[in-house]
């Protein structure tokens, strides 16, 4: 971990929103860079957000936009030798980036827990599912194996695994995809974490199972009042789960705000692009999708100015070539709704209502 930049919590930089009291997790100007042979990879480059208890933050973006790296950064799962992490992560009043790794380790799994995308590779194939849940529990609780196993059975039951007393001795390969994901949710919830980070929790699953799992996460959140970060590339999943939304592109946040606002009045061309790329079941059939041209950028040589400009159809609207030279900062475009774009509010509003929205 790099040195802690002890900026006072009350004085966030201009791009960061002010921190209200009920914020459980507050990330300030998080930067995670990796030094590689090809150059410095700026996976996350100045991301700030807050999550409140009982609320869900959705992080969307394409592969390589830095969404998973952000979540691993919050969990303190980057090796200090490889990654350069800076910025601040405040969890329940405690700063984590500059904290002793041992302190973070004690919080990890207990106060904050994670659900990974692929449960088959996230679980150890050699140990039974029950063994792994027991281990996760006993790390943080001084209880007997027997009591811990009882707790594991209870959790498996809670996440809807049939015959939990029998399945607890089963191995990951004996579980189906959906069951494995349930077992992993049981494992991450065994210590009643107050922050749950779900990294593409349903991407590997069928829609019917996805619906079950999302429902389960929602129920458990209601029951335990945890804060949830949901990382996904599926806007449908986010729309269903998230209270707030963070759209990432090239390691930075391009738009952030309450989910309803971001969906009904998106204010960044990239968000428009995402919405236009997606065939939707709730709309009449359209003839053509409106894709974003080009491909996601390399994080080593991020385009100058606005990272999205090579793919943005509106890059020439702002004057003086500013999109290619100056990086746009997040500006507030409505009640706690922020976007980073050089176009003026009016221009964006006009383009959205006249050109984009009717085609969606």
């Amino acid at each position, binding site marked *: 971990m790099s040195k802690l930049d002890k900026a006072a919590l009350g004085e966030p930089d201009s791009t960061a929103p002010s921190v209200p009291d009920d914020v459980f997790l507050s990330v300030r100007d998080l930067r995670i860079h990796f030094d590689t042979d090809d150059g410095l990879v700026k996976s996350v480059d100045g991301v700030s957000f807050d999550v409140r208890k009982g609320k869900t933050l959705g992080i969307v973006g394409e592969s390589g936009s830095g969404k998973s790296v952000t979540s691993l950064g919050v969990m303190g799962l980057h090796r200090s030798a490889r990654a350069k992490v800076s910025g601040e992560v405040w969890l329940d009043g405690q700063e984590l980036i500059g904290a002793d790794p041992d302190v973070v380790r004690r919080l990890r799994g207990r106060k904050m827990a994670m659900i990974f995308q692929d449960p088959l590779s996230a679980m150890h194939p050699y140990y039974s599912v029950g063994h792994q849940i027991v281990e996760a529990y006993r790390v943080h609780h001084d209880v007997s194996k027997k009591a811990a196993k009882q707790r594991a059975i209870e959790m498996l039951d809670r996440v809807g695994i049939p015959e939990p007393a029998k399945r607890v001795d089963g191995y990951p390969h004996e579980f189906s995809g959906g*069951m494995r994901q349930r077992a992993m949710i049981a494992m991450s919830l065994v210590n009643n974490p107050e922050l749950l980070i779900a990294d593409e929790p349903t991407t590997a699953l069928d829609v019917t199972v996805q619906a079950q799992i999302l429902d389960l996460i929602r129920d458990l959140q209601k029951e335990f009042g945890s804060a949830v970060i949901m990382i996904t590339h599926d806007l449908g999943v986010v*729309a*269903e789960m998230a209270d707030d939304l963070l759209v990432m592109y090239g390691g930075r946040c391009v738009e952030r705000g309450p989910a309803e606002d971001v969906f009904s009045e998106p204010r960044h061309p990239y968000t428009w692009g995402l919405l236009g790329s997606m065939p939707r079941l709730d709309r009449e059939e359209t003839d053509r999708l409106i894709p974003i041209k080009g491909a996601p950028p390399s994080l080593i040589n991020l385009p100058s100015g606005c990272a999205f400009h090579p793919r943005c159809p509106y890059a020439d609207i702002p004057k003086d070539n500013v999109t290619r030279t100056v990086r746009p900062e997040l500006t507030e475009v409505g009640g706690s709704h922020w976007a980073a774009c050089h176009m003026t509010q009016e221009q964006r509003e006009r383009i959205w209502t006249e050109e984009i929205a009717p085609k969606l």
Partner: protein
Amino acid sequence: MSDDKTVSTPDTSGSTLTQGTTSDGEVLLKVTGLQKHFPIRKGLLQRQTGAVRAVDGIDFEVRKGETLGVVGESGCGKSTMGRLITRLLEPTGGQVEFEGQDITHLKTGELRPMRRDVQMIFQDPYSSLNPRHTIGTIVGAPFRLQGVNPEGGVKKEVQRLLSVVGLNPEHYNRYPHEFSGGQRQRIGIARALALNPKLVVADEPVSALDVSIQAQVVNLLDDLQEELGLTYVIIAHDLSVVRHVSDRIAVMYLGKIVELADRDKLYKSPMHPYSKALLSAVPIPDPKRRGVKSERILLKGDVPSPIAPPSGCRFHTRCWKATEICKTTEPPLKELRAGQQVACHHPENFEDQQPQDTKLLSSAKEIVSEPVEK
């Protein structure tokens, strides 16, 4: 892709004749009672102890110029079906007819002429391209294998193909690792188009791609179909993508087709309970609909094992409408409405096929009419 002239008039067994279809409804591929059982062998003597019934008796046909979408959960046999109709696998039973010729049990050599007409696009653009070959070699391979000498030489033709799929022809000498996922998928498409095929079977062509790239590839497939008059069978699990690309859609469950219908009919009023559950499970990208969602059907549990599929209707273990008859009698795939074939005793949006049998087997239905408190 949006011609809706394709209306079938199949008889009850599902093995269809194409009277009543318009001239462009000529049957290109016809599948009857197709089966593929993978044997499970055990013990010293490798005696067969069972079989995975991946595809277990399906009938359908694909007409010229149309796109047939195939959806279903993982393990329902949709990929195996794709490999059977391209004859990458040999069927255990049933018949596959391509342009009237029975290709079910042809040998490798005999298949070669047909390979020109039937091509496949694979799911994973990373493993379906040989990392040690250049793009030129990969896309040019079909010409070499078929002994075809295109006008102007192979290189020129390959470069033309690359530009058709939206790649730079100058990338002829590059290797697959130099390309992004979306570009690789385009290379796969270029290779599939090399010999001017009649039928292209695409197995999850866009599921490994990012949303923005996915839209590019979907549009590309769309354009190519229009320009080259291709016929597609597109296998996918994403119901919104399938709706976008298909004219007709087959819904598979445990090796069987449970519903085969025109796109709009299926999405507006699905008749098989499974189709309905599947459609209701798709998350809608609109947070405002969260509170007002009509109903979502949550299926309990997982798909049963294809080694020992449930008796009768295979869906009865998870179906909320299942009655005694569902346990004992397998419902045939019947055309209940024009352009909509369904295999169900108690279809949705239609009169009950077995009204006398009302004793419900299960209480599997769990409707979430959720106003999520915020």
